Protein backbone atom coordinates (compact mmCIF):
# COMPACT_ATOMS: atom_id res chain seq x y z
CA UNK A 1 0.00 0.00 0.00
CA UNK A 2 0.97 3.63 0.11
CA UNK A 3 3.54 3.17 2.83
CA UNK A 4 5.50 0.73 0.75
CA UNK A 5 5.02 2.60 -2.48
CA UNK A 6 6.27 5.85 -1.08
CA UNK A 7 9.29 4.25 0.52
CA UNK A 8 10.30 2.61 -2.71
CA UNK A 9 9.93 5.74 -4.81
CA UNK A 10 11.36 8.23 -2.37
CA UNK A 11 14.20 6.53 -0.55
CA UNK A 12 16.91 8.52 -2.29
CA UNK A 13 15.23 11.88 -1.93
CA UNK A 14 15.41 12.27 1.88
CA UNK A 15 11.68 12.91 1.72
CA UNK A 16 11.39 14.08 5.31
CA UNK A 17 13.32 17.20 4.43
CA UNK A 18 10.57 18.87 2.42
CA UNK A 19 7.09 20.23 2.79
CA UNK A 20 4.12 18.20 1.65
CA UNK A 21 1.19 20.14 3.09
CA UNK A 22 0.99 23.40 4.99
CA UNK A 23 1.28 22.54 8.66
CA UNK A 24 3.62 19.59 8.17
CA UNK A 25 7.15 20.11 9.38
CA UNK A 26 10.56 19.32 7.91
CA UNK A 27 12.29 19.57 11.30
CA UNK A 28 14.11 16.76 13.05
CA UNK A 29 12.21 14.79 15.67
CA UNK A 30 12.62 15.97 19.24
CA UNK A 31 13.93 13.55 21.86
CA UNK A 32 10.76 13.73 23.94
CA UNK A 33 7.07 14.43 23.40
CA UNK A 34 4.15 14.50 25.80
CA UNK A 35 2.13 12.47 23.32
CA UNK A 36 2.82 10.78 20.00
CA UNK A 37 0.00 10.11 17.55
CA UNK A 38 0.75 7.32 15.11
CA UNK A 39 -0.98 8.05 11.80
CA UNK A 40 -1.54 11.37 10.07
CA UNK A 41 -4.99 10.56 8.79
CA UNK A 42 -7.97 12.61 9.86
CA UNK A 43 -8.18 10.79 13.19
CA UNK A 44 -4.59 11.41 14.24
CA UNK A 45 -4.44 15.00 13.01
CA UNK A 46 -7.83 16.02 14.45
CA UNK A 47 -7.00 14.42 17.80
CA UNK A 48 -3.67 16.27 17.90
CA UNK A 49 -5.54 19.53 17.27
CA UNK A 50 -7.99 18.84 20.10
CA UNK A 51 -5.19 17.90 22.51
CA UNK A 52 -3.29 21.07 21.59
CA UNK A 53 -6.43 23.12 22.19
CA UNK A 54 -6.39 21.74 25.72
CA UNK A 55 -2.76 22.78 26.09
CA UNK A 56 -1.56 19.21 26.33
CA UNK A 57 2.15 19.98 25.87
CA UNK A 58 4.46 18.91 23.09
CA UNK A 59 2.71 16.77 20.48
CA UNK A 60 3.90 14.86 17.43
CA UNK A 61 1.86 13.26 14.67
CA UNK A 62 3.87 10.71 12.69
CA UNK A 63 2.83 9.47 9.29
CA UNK A 64 4.59 6.85 7.20
CA UNK A 65 3.74 8.79 4.02
CA UNK A 66 2.06 12.16 3.48
CA UNK A 67 -0.81 13.13 5.79
CA UNK A 68 -4.06 12.07 4.16
CA UNK A 69 -2.42 9.32 2.10
CA UNK A 70 -4.60 6.68 3.77
CA UNK A 71 -8.38 6.36 3.76
CA UNK A 72 -8.77 10.00 4.84
CA UNK A 73 -7.87 11.13 1.31
CA UNK A 74 -9.80 8.38 -0.43
CA UNK A 75 -13.27 8.28 1.11
CA UNK A 76 -16.78 9.07 -0.08
CA UNK A 77 -17.04 12.22 2.11
CA UNK A 78 -20.54 11.38 3.34
CA UNK A 79 -21.73 12.98 6.58
CA UNK A 80 -24.74 11.98 8.68
CA UNK A 81 -25.74 11.15 12.22
CA UNK A 82 -29.11 9.55 11.49
CA UNK A 83 -28.18 6.04 12.54
CA UNK A 84 -30.38 3.43 14.18
CA UNK A 85 -28.78 2.97 17.60
CA UNK A 86 -28.37 5.17 20.69
CA UNK A 87 -24.61 4.58 20.62
CA UNK A 88 -24.04 5.64 17.02
CA UNK A 89 -26.42 8.57 17.24
CA UNK A 90 -24.66 9.76 20.39
CA UNK A 91 -21.20 9.82 18.88
CA UNK A 92 -22.04 10.86 15.34
CA UNK A 93 -24.52 13.57 16.22
CA UNK A 94 -21.87 15.15 18.43
CA UNK A 95 -19.75 15.07 15.28
CA UNK A 96 -22.46 16.52 13.06
CA UNK A 97 -22.83 19.49 15.41
CA UNK A 98 -19.12 20.10 15.06
CA UNK A 99 -19.26 19.77 11.26
CA UNK A 100 -21.77 22.63 11.12
CA UNK A 101 -19.15 25.06 12.43
CA UNK A 102 -15.92 23.31 11.45
CA UNK A 103 -14.81 25.75 8.75
CA UNK A 104 -15.13 28.63 11.20
CA UNK A 105 -13.51 26.71 14.05
CA UNK A 106 -10.49 25.76 11.94
CA UNK A 107 -10.44 28.95 9.85
CA UNK A 108 -10.32 26.94 6.61
CA UNK A 109 -13.18 26.10 4.26
CA UNK A 110 -13.78 22.35 4.48
CA UNK A 111 -16.61 22.70 1.91
CA UNK A 112 -19.23 21.20 4.20
CA UNK A 113 -22.33 21.11 2.02
CA UNK A 114 -25.50 20.84 4.06
CA UNK A 115 -27.55 19.52 1.17
CA UNK A 116 -29.15 16.74 3.18
CA UNK A 117 -28.36 13.02 3.46
CA UNK A 118 -30.89 10.66 1.97
CA UNK A 119 -30.91 7.05 3.12
CA UNK A 120 -32.96 5.35 0.46
CA UNK A 121 -35.43 2.56 1.20
CA UNK A 122 -36.10 0.43 -1.86
CA UNK A 123 -38.53 -2.07 -0.34
CA UNK A 124 -41.58 -1.76 1.92
CA UNK A 125 -39.66 -3.66 4.62
CA UNK A 126 -36.77 -1.21 4.45
CA UNK A 127 -39.22 1.68 4.66
CA UNK A 128 -40.90 0.19 7.72
CA UNK A 129 -37.50 -0.16 9.41
CA UNK A 130 -36.71 3.43 8.47
CA UNK A 131 -39.93 4.54 10.13
CA UNK A 132 -38.84 2.96 13.40
CA UNK A 133 -35.43 4.57 13.12
CA UNK A 134 -36.95 8.00 12.53
CA UNK A 135 -38.88 7.72 15.80
CA UNK A 136 -35.63 7.06 17.67
CA UNK A 137 -33.81 9.79 15.75
CA UNK A 138 -36.53 12.30 16.57
CA UNK A 139 -36.21 11.48 20.27
CA UNK A 140 -32.58 12.54 19.90
CA UNK A 141 -33.66 15.80 18.21
CA UNK A 142 -32.19 14.86 14.85
CA UNK A 143 -33.51 16.79 11.87
CA UNK A 144 -34.98 13.87 9.98
CA UNK A 145 -37.96 13.47 7.71
CA UNK A 146 -39.59 10.29 6.48
CA UNK A 147 -40.18 10.69 2.75
CA UNK A 148 -42.61 8.75 0.59
CA UNK A 149 -42.09 7.76 -3.03
CA UNK A 150 -43.32 11.07 -4.46
CA UNK A 151 -41.25 13.17 -2.07
CA UNK A 152 -38.09 11.33 -3.08
CA UNK A 153 -38.92 11.73 -6.77
CA UNK A 154 -39.30 15.47 -6.30
CA UNK A 155 -35.98 15.71 -4.47
CA UNK A 156 -34.10 13.35 -6.82
CA UNK A 157 -35.86 13.50 -10.19
CA UNK A 158 -33.15 11.47 -11.92
CA UNK A 159 -33.45 8.51 -9.58
CA UNK A 160 -35.00 5.34 -11.03
CA UNK A 161 -38.59 5.19 -9.73
CA UNK A 162 -38.36 1.42 -9.26
CA UNK A 163 -35.62 1.94 -6.66
CA UNK A 164 -37.78 4.19 -4.51
CA UNK A 165 -40.11 3.03 -1.76
CA UNK A 166 -39.26 5.99 0.43
CA UNK A 167 -36.35 7.41 2.38
CA UNK A 168 -35.09 9.07 5.50
CA UNK A 169 -33.78 12.54 4.81
CA UNK A 170 -31.50 14.13 7.38
CA UNK A 171 -31.80 17.75 6.38
CA UNK A 172 -28.74 19.23 8.11
CA UNK A 173 -26.28 16.52 7.00
CA UNK A 174 -24.53 16.13 3.64
CA UNK A 175 -20.88 15.95 2.61
CA UNK A 176 -17.60 17.84 2.81
CA UNK A 177 -14.23 17.80 1.05
CA UNK A 178 -11.98 15.15 2.58
CA UNK A 179 -8.63 16.70 1.68
CA UNK A 180 -9.71 20.17 2.76
CA UNK A 181 -10.84 18.77 6.10
CA UNK A 182 -7.49 17.14 6.74
CA UNK A 183 -5.56 20.25 5.70
CA UNK A 184 -7.81 22.42 7.87
CA UNK A 185 -7.09 20.35 10.97
CA UNK A 186 -3.39 20.09 10.10
CA UNK A 187 -2.91 23.84 9.80
CA UNK A 188 -4.97 24.58 12.89
CA UNK A 189 -2.96 21.99 14.83
CA UNK A 190 0.34 23.40 13.56
CA UNK A 191 -0.69 26.90 14.64
CA UNK A 192 -1.07 25.49 18.16
CA UNK A 193 2.42 24.00 18.01
CA UNK A 194 1.68 20.41 16.94
CA UNK A 195 4.50 18.86 14.90
CA UNK A 196 3.25 16.82 11.96
CA UNK A 197 6.09 14.67 10.64
CA UNK A 198 5.45 13.10 7.24
CA UNK A 199 7.48 10.15 5.93
CA UNK A 200 8.15 8.91 9.45
CA UNK A 201 7.30 5.25 10.03
CA UNK A 202 6.85 3.82 13.49
CA UNK A 203 8.69 0.52 13.80
CA UNK A 204 8.48 -0.18 17.54
CA UNK A 205 6.65 0.88 20.66
CA UNK A 206 8.58 0.56 23.91
CA UNK A 207 6.48 -0.45 26.91
CA UNK A 208 7.97 -1.59 30.17
CA UNK A 209 6.40 -2.04 33.58
CA UNK A 210 2.95 -1.87 32.01
CA UNK A 211 3.40 1.64 30.63
CA UNK A 212 4.41 3.27 27.36
CA UNK A 213 7.97 4.65 27.37
CA UNK A 214 9.03 5.24 23.79
CA UNK A 215 8.36 5.05 20.09
CA UNK A 216 10.98 4.02 17.57
CA UNK A 217 10.80 5.33 14.01
CA UNK A 218 12.91 5.06 10.89
CA UNK A 219 14.14 8.56 11.79
CA UNK A 220 15.11 7.85 15.39
CA UNK A 221 13.74 7.04 18.82
CA UNK A 222 11.47 9.29 20.87
CA UNK A 223 10.55 9.02 24.52
CA UNK A 224 6.94 9.59 25.44
CA UNK A 225 4.43 8.29 27.94
CA UNK A 226 1.35 8.66 25.73
CA UNK A 227 0.87 6.95 22.37
CA UNK A 228 -2.27 6.86 20.22
CA UNK A 229 -2.74 4.18 17.58
CA UNK A 230 -4.52 6.02 14.78
CA UNK A 231 -2.84 4.04 12.03
CA UNK A 232 -5.97 3.31 9.96
CA UNK A 233 -5.44 0.24 7.79
CA UNK A 234 -2.26 -0.60 9.73
CA UNK A 235 -3.79 -0.15 13.19
CA UNK A 236 -3.62 -3.84 14.02
CA UNK A 237 0.07 -4.07 13.15
CA UNK A 238 0.83 -0.89 15.11
CA UNK A 239 -1.02 -2.10 18.23
CA UNK A 240 0.83 -5.37 17.77
CA UNK A 241 4.10 -3.47 18.26
CA UNK A 242 2.99 -3.01 21.87
CA UNK A 243 1.70 -6.57 22.16
CA UNK A 244 -1.96 -5.50 22.03
CA UNK A 245 -4.39 -7.34 19.78
CA UNK A 246 -6.94 -5.15 18.05
CA UNK A 247 -9.71 -7.33 16.59
CA UNK A 248 -10.15 -5.80 13.15
CA UNK A 249 -10.12 -7.05 9.62
CA UNK A 250 -8.91 -5.01 6.67
CA UNK A 251 -11.20 -4.40 3.71
CA UNK A 252 -10.70 -2.59 0.45
CA UNK A 253 -13.35 -0.06 -0.55
CA UNK A 254 -13.46 1.24 -4.11
CA UNK A 255 -14.80 4.55 -5.31
CA UNK A 256 -15.06 6.51 -8.54
CA UNK A 257 -15.65 9.93 -9.99
CA UNK A 258 -17.24 10.89 -13.30
CA UNK A 259 -16.63 13.82 -15.58
CA UNK A 260 -18.38 16.98 -14.33
CA UNK A 261 -22.12 17.30 -15.04
CA UNK A 262 -24.63 20.08 -14.68
CA UNK A 263 -26.21 19.87 -11.20
CA UNK A 264 -28.68 16.95 -11.08
CA UNK A 265 -28.34 15.58 -7.55
CA UNK A 266 -28.54 17.70 -4.43
CA UNK A 267 -28.38 15.52 -1.32
CA UNK A 268 -25.86 12.86 -0.46
CA UNK A 269 -27.53 9.50 -1.22
CA UNK A 270 -26.97 6.09 0.32
CA UNK A 271 -28.70 3.00 -0.94
CA UNK A 272 -28.46 -0.24 1.03
CA UNK A 273 -30.18 -2.03 -1.88
CA UNK A 274 -27.11 -1.48 -4.07
CA UNK A 275 -24.75 -1.18 -1.11
CA UNK A 276 -23.71 2.18 -2.50
CA UNK A 277 -23.29 5.82 -1.56
CA UNK A 278 -22.80 8.90 -3.71
CA UNK A 279 -23.06 12.65 -4.10
CA UNK A 280 -22.49 15.31 -6.71
CA UNK A 281 -19.65 17.68 -5.86
CA UNK A 282 -19.78 21.44 -6.17
CA UNK A 283 -17.52 20.96 -9.23
CA UNK A 284 -20.26 18.82 -10.80
CA UNK A 285 -18.60 15.43 -10.62
CA UNK A 286 -20.63 12.43 -9.49
CA UNK A 287 -18.61 10.66 -6.78
CA UNK A 288 -19.49 7.40 -5.16
CA UNK A 289 -18.63 3.87 -4.22
CA UNK A 290 -20.32 0.51 -3.91
CA UNK A 291 -19.44 -2.60 -2.04
CA UNK A 292 -19.74 -6.26 -2.88
CA UNK A 293 -22.45 -8.07 -0.93
CA UNK A 294 -19.92 -10.38 0.64
CA UNK A 295 -16.68 -8.55 1.24
CA UNK A 296 -13.42 -10.43 1.22
CA UNK A 297 -10.63 -9.21 3.50
CA UNK A 298 -8.08 -7.48 1.29
CA UNK A 299 -5.17 -5.17 2.04
CA UNK A 300 -4.46 -4.14 -1.54
CA UNK A 301 -5.25 -0.62 -2.67
CA UNK A 302 -5.13 -1.60 -6.33
CA UNK A 303 -8.46 -0.92 -7.99
CA UNK A 304 -10.20 -3.90 -9.55
CA UNK A 305 -12.14 -4.26 -12.79
CA UNK A 306 -14.82 -6.09 -10.80
CA UNK A 307 -15.08 -3.01 -8.61
CA UNK A 308 -15.44 -0.69 -11.60
CA UNK A 309 -18.15 -2.88 -13.10
CA UNK A 310 -19.97 -3.23 -9.79
CA UNK A 311 -20.09 0.55 -9.38
CA UNK A 312 -21.09 1.20 -12.98
CA UNK A 313 -23.85 -1.40 -12.93
CA UNK A 314 -25.33 -0.29 -9.63
CA UNK A 315 -25.11 3.45 -10.19
CA UNK A 316 -26.71 3.13 -13.64
CA UNK A 317 -29.47 1.16 -11.95
CA UNK A 318 -29.97 3.96 -9.44
CA UNK A 319 -29.55 6.86 -11.90
CA UNK A 320 -30.20 5.57 -15.44
CA UNK A 321 -28.91 8.79 -17.02
CA UNK A 322 -25.41 7.92 -15.79
CA UNK A 323 -25.18 5.23 -18.50
CA UNK A 324 -24.03 7.93 -20.89
CA UNK A 325 -21.64 9.57 -18.45
CA UNK A 326 -17.95 8.75 -18.38
CA UNK A 327 -16.00 7.49 -15.38
CA UNK A 328 -12.90 9.60 -15.10
CA UNK A 329 -11.07 7.95 -12.26
CA UNK A 330 -11.42 4.98 -9.97
CA UNK A 331 -9.46 4.38 -6.79
CA UNK A 332 -9.38 2.29 -3.64
CA UNK A 333 -8.61 2.64 0.01
CA UNK A 334 -8.61 0.34 2.98
CA UNK A 335 -10.63 0.45 6.15
CA UNK A 336 -10.48 -1.69 9.24
CA UNK A 337 -13.66 -3.28 10.40
CA UNK A 338 -14.59 -4.70 13.79
CA UNK A 339 -17.17 -7.41 14.42
CA UNK A 340 -19.90 -4.78 14.99
CA UNK A 341 -18.48 -2.30 12.45
CA UNK A 342 -18.17 0.35 15.19
CA UNK A 343 -14.80 1.98 15.87
CA UNK A 344 -12.53 1.17 18.79
CA UNK A 345 -12.04 4.27 20.93
CA UNK A 346 -10.39 4.42 24.33
CA UNK A 347 -7.57 2.95 26.38
CA UNK A 348 -5.67 -0.11 25.27
CA UNK A 349 -5.91 -2.88 27.85
CA UNK A 350 -2.90 -3.58 30.03
CA UNK A 351 -0.62 -0.73 28.95
CA UNK A 352 -0.82 2.68 30.60
CA UNK A 353 -0.61 5.54 28.16
CA UNK A 354 -1.58 3.56 25.06
CA UNK A 355 -4.82 4.64 23.40
CA UNK A 356 -6.75 3.23 20.44
CA UNK A 357 -8.52 5.32 17.81
CA UNK A 358 -9.07 2.81 15.04
CA UNK A 359 -11.39 0.23 13.53
CA UNK A 360 -13.12 2.98 11.57
CA UNK A 361 -15.45 2.52 8.64
CA UNK A 362 -17.25 5.85 9.15
CA UNK A 363 -14.11 7.63 10.24
CA UNK A 364 -14.57 10.73 8.12
CA UNK A 365 -17.91 11.84 9.56
CA UNK A 366 -16.89 10.60 13.00
CA UNK A 367 -13.57 12.42 13.27
CA UNK A 368 -14.58 15.76 14.81
CA UNK A 369 -16.36 14.14 17.76
CA UNK A 370 -13.93 11.28 18.24
CA UNK A 371 -11.04 13.74 18.33
CA UNK A 372 -12.66 16.00 20.92
CA UNK A 373 -13.84 13.13 23.12
CA UNK A 374 -10.57 11.18 22.92
CA UNK A 375 -8.70 14.38 23.81
CA UNK A 376 -10.93 14.73 26.86
CA UNK A 377 -10.18 11.14 27.88
CA UNK A 378 -6.42 11.55 27.42
CA UNK A 379 -6.28 14.94 29.14
CA UNK A 380 -8.58 14.22 32.09
CA UNK A 381 -8.45 10.44 32.47
CA UNK A 382 -12.25 10.33 32.38
CA UNK A 383 -14.15 8.58 29.61
CA UNK A 384 -16.92 10.81 28.25
CA UNK A 385 -20.22 8.87 28.40
CA UNK A 386 -20.75 9.06 24.63
CA UNK A 387 -17.38 7.36 24.10
CA UNK A 388 -17.88 4.61 26.68
CA UNK A 389 -19.71 2.05 24.48
CA UNK A 390 -16.86 2.10 21.93
CA UNK A 391 -14.13 0.68 24.19
CA UNK A 392 -12.25 -2.42 23.13
CA UNK A 393 -13.57 -4.27 26.22
CA UNK A 394 -16.80 -4.95 24.36
CA UNK A 395 -15.18 -7.69 22.33
CA UNK A 396 -14.23 -9.52 25.53
CA UNK A 397 -17.59 -8.98 27.27
CA UNK A 398 -19.63 -9.61 24.14
CA UNK A 399 -21.50 -6.33 24.55
CA UNK A 400 -21.32 -5.49 20.88
CA UNK A 401 -23.14 -2.47 19.50
CA UNK A 402 -26.19 -3.26 17.42
CA UNK A 403 -26.47 -0.79 14.56
CA UNK A 404 -28.65 -1.69 11.60
CA UNK A 405 -28.59 1.34 9.30
CA UNK A 406 -25.06 0.95 7.94
CA UNK A 407 -24.35 0.84 4.25
CA UNK A 408 -21.58 -1.66 4.62
CA UNK A 409 -21.48 -5.40 4.60
CA UNK A 410 -20.28 -6.90 7.84
CA UNK A 411 -17.87 -9.76 7.37
CA UNK A 412 -19.90 -12.87 6.72
CA UNK A 413 -23.29 -11.14 6.94
CA UNK A 414 -25.02 -8.35 5.09
CA UNK A 415 -26.02 -5.35 7.15
CA UNK A 416 -28.27 -2.87 5.46
Amino acid at each position, binding site marked *: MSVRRVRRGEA*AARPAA*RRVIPGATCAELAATYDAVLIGGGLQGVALAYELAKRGYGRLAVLDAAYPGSGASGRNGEMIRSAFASEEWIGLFDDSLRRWQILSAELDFNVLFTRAGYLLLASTPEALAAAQGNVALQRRHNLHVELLGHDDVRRLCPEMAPAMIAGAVLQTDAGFAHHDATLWAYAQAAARLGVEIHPYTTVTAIGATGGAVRSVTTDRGKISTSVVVDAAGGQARAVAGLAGVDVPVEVFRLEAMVTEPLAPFLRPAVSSPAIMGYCHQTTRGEFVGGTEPDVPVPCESIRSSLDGA*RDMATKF*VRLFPRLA*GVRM*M*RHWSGIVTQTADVAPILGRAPGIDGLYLDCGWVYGFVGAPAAAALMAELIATGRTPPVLAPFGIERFATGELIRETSLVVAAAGESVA
Partner: protein
Amino acid sequence: MAKTILCLCRDVTAEDVRRAVAQGYGDLETLKRFTGACTGPCQGKTCVDAVRRLVAELTGRDVEEIAVPPARPPTTPVRLGTLAAKDAS
Protein backbone atom coordinates in the same frame (compact mmCIF):
# COMPACT_ATOMS: atom_id res chain seq x y z
CA MET B 1 0.28 39.59 -17.78
CA ALA B 2 -0.57 36.58 -19.90
CA LYS B 3 -1.70 33.46 -18.08
CA THR B 4 0.25 30.25 -18.51
CA ILE B 5 -2.22 27.41 -18.26
CA LEU B 6 -0.58 24.13 -17.29
CA CYS B 7 -3.63 21.91 -16.77
CA LEU B 8 -6.06 22.44 -19.62
CA CYS B 9 -8.84 20.32 -18.13
CA ARG B 10 -8.97 22.26 -14.88
CA ASP B 11 -7.62 25.62 -15.99
CA VAL B 12 -4.77 25.45 -13.49
CA THR B 13 -2.18 28.14 -14.19
CA ALA B 14 1.54 28.31 -13.43
CA GLU B 15 0.66 31.01 -10.92
CA ASP B 16 -1.79 28.66 -9.15
CA VAL B 17 0.98 26.08 -8.85
CA ARG B 18 3.47 28.69 -7.65
CA ARG B 19 1.07 29.86 -4.97
CA ALA B 20 0.26 26.32 -3.83
CA VAL B 21 3.94 25.37 -3.57
CA ALA B 22 4.63 28.57 -1.64
CA GLN B 23 1.87 27.60 0.80
CA GLY B 24 3.47 24.20 1.35
CA TYR B 25 1.85 21.77 -1.10
CA GLY B 26 5.29 20.64 -2.30
CA ASP B 27 4.45 17.08 -3.41
CA LEU B 28 2.63 16.24 -6.64
CA GLU B 29 0.26 14.06 -4.59
CA THR B 30 -0.87 16.94 -2.42
CA LEU B 31 -0.48 19.65 -5.06
CA LYS B 32 -2.83 17.82 -7.41
CA ARG B 33 -5.45 17.57 -4.68
CA PHE B 34 -5.12 21.25 -3.76
CA THR B 35 -5.05 22.78 -7.25
CA GLY B 36 -7.04 20.15 -9.15
CA ALA B 37 -4.22 19.86 -11.69
CA CYS B 38 -4.06 16.39 -13.27
CA THR B 39 -7.58 15.47 -12.07
CA GLY B 40 -9.61 16.32 -15.18
CA PRO B 41 -10.75 14.06 -17.99
CA CYS B 42 -7.17 13.55 -19.27
CA GLN B 43 -6.07 12.57 -15.75
CA GLY B 44 -2.78 14.42 -16.07
CA LYS B 45 -1.62 12.97 -19.38
CA THR B 46 -1.31 16.45 -20.85
CA CYS B 47 -0.03 18.38 -17.87
CA VAL B 48 1.78 16.21 -15.36
CA ASP B 49 5.22 16.73 -16.93
CA ALA B 50 4.84 20.49 -17.01
CA VAL B 51 3.54 20.64 -13.44
CA ARG B 52 6.30 18.32 -12.27
CA ARG B 53 9.00 20.44 -13.92
CA LEU B 54 7.66 23.61 -12.35
CA VAL B 55 7.49 22.02 -8.89
CA ALA B 56 11.10 20.83 -9.30
CA GLU B 57 12.19 24.32 -10.28
CA LEU B 58 10.29 25.99 -7.44
CA THR B 59 11.59 23.59 -4.77
CA GLY B 60 15.15 23.36 -6.08
CA ARG B 61 15.06 19.65 -6.75
CA ASP B 62 15.78 17.42 -9.74
CA VAL B 63 12.70 16.47 -11.73
CA GLU B 64 13.38 12.78 -10.95
CA GLU B 65 13.05 13.51 -7.24
CA ILE B 66 9.41 14.55 -7.66
CA ALA B 67 7.34 11.39 -7.49
CA VAL B 68 4.49 11.18 -9.98
CA PRO B 69 1.17 10.02 -8.47
CA PRO B 70 0.28 6.50 -9.58
CA ALA B 71 -1.92 6.35 -12.66
CA ARG B 72 -5.47 5.31 -11.88
CA PRO B 73 -7.89 3.43 -14.07
CA PRO B 74 -9.52 3.80 -16.53
CA THR B 75 -6.76 4.91 -18.91
CA THR B 76 -9.33 6.97 -20.80
CA PRO B 77 -12.77 7.92 -19.52
CA VAL B 78 -15.32 5.12 -20.09
CA ARG B 79 -19.11 5.43 -20.13
CA LEU B 80 -20.71 3.77 -17.14
CA GLY B 81 -23.17 2.16 -19.54
CA THR B 82 -20.27 0.46 -21.31
CA LEU B 83 -18.82 -0.88 -18.07
CA ALA B 84 -22.25 -2.00 -16.91
CA ALA B 85 -23.22 -3.54 -20.24
CA LYS B 86 -22.26 -7.12 -19.48
CA ASP B 87 -24.64 -7.21 -16.54
CA ALA B 88 -27.51 -5.46 -18.24
CA SER B 89 -30.32 -7.82 -19.14
